């Protein structure tokens, strides 16, 4: 019966998508500047991945396969959205960065895990800044407004937090590597 075959296909796909969702999402957000563009692209990628799921060879790296499809979506998306006022990013730049991400793939996933630990170490006030920017999705101007800072001060604080997080992540990954 095609029905039961379809069901197990759906389950397989969902399982793979679920365990790779965040990795794919980070990949697209790393390559696409605008957040809502990135969400559109992710949605389109999931659809294409499902359509092409029969091409996926079980047992091979699903995330790598998914990234390939997403990168294609990103490059196409940019071309079809030329009307957007957001300044364009050179496809050569996207491809260069995508290549670099592939090269550092293992290291980056270790960094993703370490980030969880480092986030927990943030003091309360800094957590608030992170939540405003990344959970609420506020722009710097909105964060500044919410926290009663100037835009420049809000940016500098956020930038310092990212720097601290990055340093913590590097330390964590080096410790666990050695």
């Amino acid at each position, binding site marked *: 019966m095609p029905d039961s075959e379809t069901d197990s296909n759906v389950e397989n796909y969902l399982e793979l998508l679920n365990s790779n969702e965040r990795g794919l999402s*980070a990949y697209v957000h790393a390559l696409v500047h605008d957040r809502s563009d990135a969400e559109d692209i992710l949605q389109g990628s999931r659809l294409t991945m499902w359509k092409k799921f029969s091409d996926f060879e079980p047992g091979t790296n699903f995330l790598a396969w998914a990234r390939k499809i997403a990168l294609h979506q990103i490059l196409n998306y940019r071309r079809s959205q030329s009307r957007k006022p957001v300044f364009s990013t*050179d496809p050569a*730049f996207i491809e260069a960065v995508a290549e*670099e991400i592939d090269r550092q793939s293992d290291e980056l996933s270790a960094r993703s895990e370490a980030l969880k630990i480092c986030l927990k170490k943030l003091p309360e006030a800094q957590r608030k800044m992170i939540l405003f920017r990344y*959970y609420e999705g506020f*722009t*710097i101007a909105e964060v500044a407004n919410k926290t009663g800072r100037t835009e420049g001060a809000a*940016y500098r604080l956020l930038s310092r937090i990212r720097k601290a997080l990055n340093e913590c992540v590097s330390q964590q990954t080096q410790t666990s590597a050695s």
Partner: protein
Amino acid sequence: MRITTDSDLGLMIDKDSIDRLFDDQLSEAEAKQIEEAIIGDSELRRAYVEQRWLHAELIARGEELPDLFESKPRTGFPEVIGWLSAAAAIVFFASTVFLISSDKSEPTVATLIEAENCRWSGSELPTAEGAKLGAGRLALTEGMATIRFDSGAIVTLEAPTTLDIASAMRARLIEGSVVADIPESAHGFTIDTADTEIIDLGTRFGVTTTDLGSSHVFVFEGEVEVNQAEKPGTKLMTEGQSMRIGEENAFSTTSEEGEIARHASLIAPGDDWVAITTKEGRGKDAYFRKTHDESFGSDPLIMVKETDLSDANRRKAALTFDLKRQALHRVTDAKLSLKIESSGLGFSSLVPDSEFVLYGVRDSAMDQWKENEVSWSSAEPFALSDNPDAYESLASFTIKKGSPNSAVEMQSEALTHFIASHPDDLLTFVLTRVTGENDKQGLVHAFASKEHPSSPAPTLWIQTSQE
């Protein structure tokens, strides 16, 4: 890292300038310049990806950041969110690409294991017994339903209740009452209300809310943690404690027009019947609560409860009707009707189907009780057991567990005879509940009193013969 300078703009390309890209802190020209430098410089590219990845990872984790910051474990929740978005995506595919059987594609998080005399309205989820439930809304208008979450948590809904199931570990109580039984596997199970988060720490607890926004939390066993939106900090509640949150006024004056219309026909038996309510003439109604010296005569509710477990919660009611101008000796039939209301106190799942008994007061001297003066202790004459001759048991009725707030009617020959043979035109009745409770937090039954703003007051219907 090597620091690259660009002669045209004089911009230093380093970690700080890269970071500026993420928050739109650069002009288009500056951004372009950095991009070009990154394309041409492998070391810069490496640094860029490292920084960019953190930014992207934070965006990707956006939804779960509050949970990541929490020190307490909320197992399963972020994963479920992932699943839900995947499920939403697959449903979208299903409708656009081809048809698939939808019951398997939606992850279920709970099962409806028991549905007694249930009526549902506006539920997004299947409502047959044994139904697998995903995330979504259950709206129970009548009856009592029990859900077992996949985490092991068992939650009983008492109509009228609306519950949003979020995951195997979380649900939101929109309105109504639930009792949660949490086994070890589901520690951390959380029920949210409009302004409160109740996290289970291994327990049995109950929550009621009213549409006025107040909620009431009871802990039957174990411990729960309560976080209120309005107040900082976490409150720990232990066994036997209860807490009222939000608006103090627990009495809801809202009424559903449809419901009243439904009961209007129920309490209008025919043209030749005459209705007398406790509002008329010297009529009065009140309830008395054991060991409480205040009177509840002007309360909009008449509350009745029987219990062996906490004496101070026993309540009984007295009703007096003024039947002046009625030819009592010609009464051929009679019934007494009461509109059931929610007391907002206690849980009906902790009380079995409840039997009530109506007594007629024989001693006319007792008709003179004062609505706003009489308390349990001063209502000693109403102590049924002490004075069996002064009372006559006239009728009884049963309110089933989780039954809707409809009306009850008592009709019996004894009632008719009691009225027809009454020596004067003031008739006093005492209403008690016979059925006790299984737990101290059992339901307090309530009926509309004559002070109720929207529901009909206690009403005595009589039919008289034509001379």
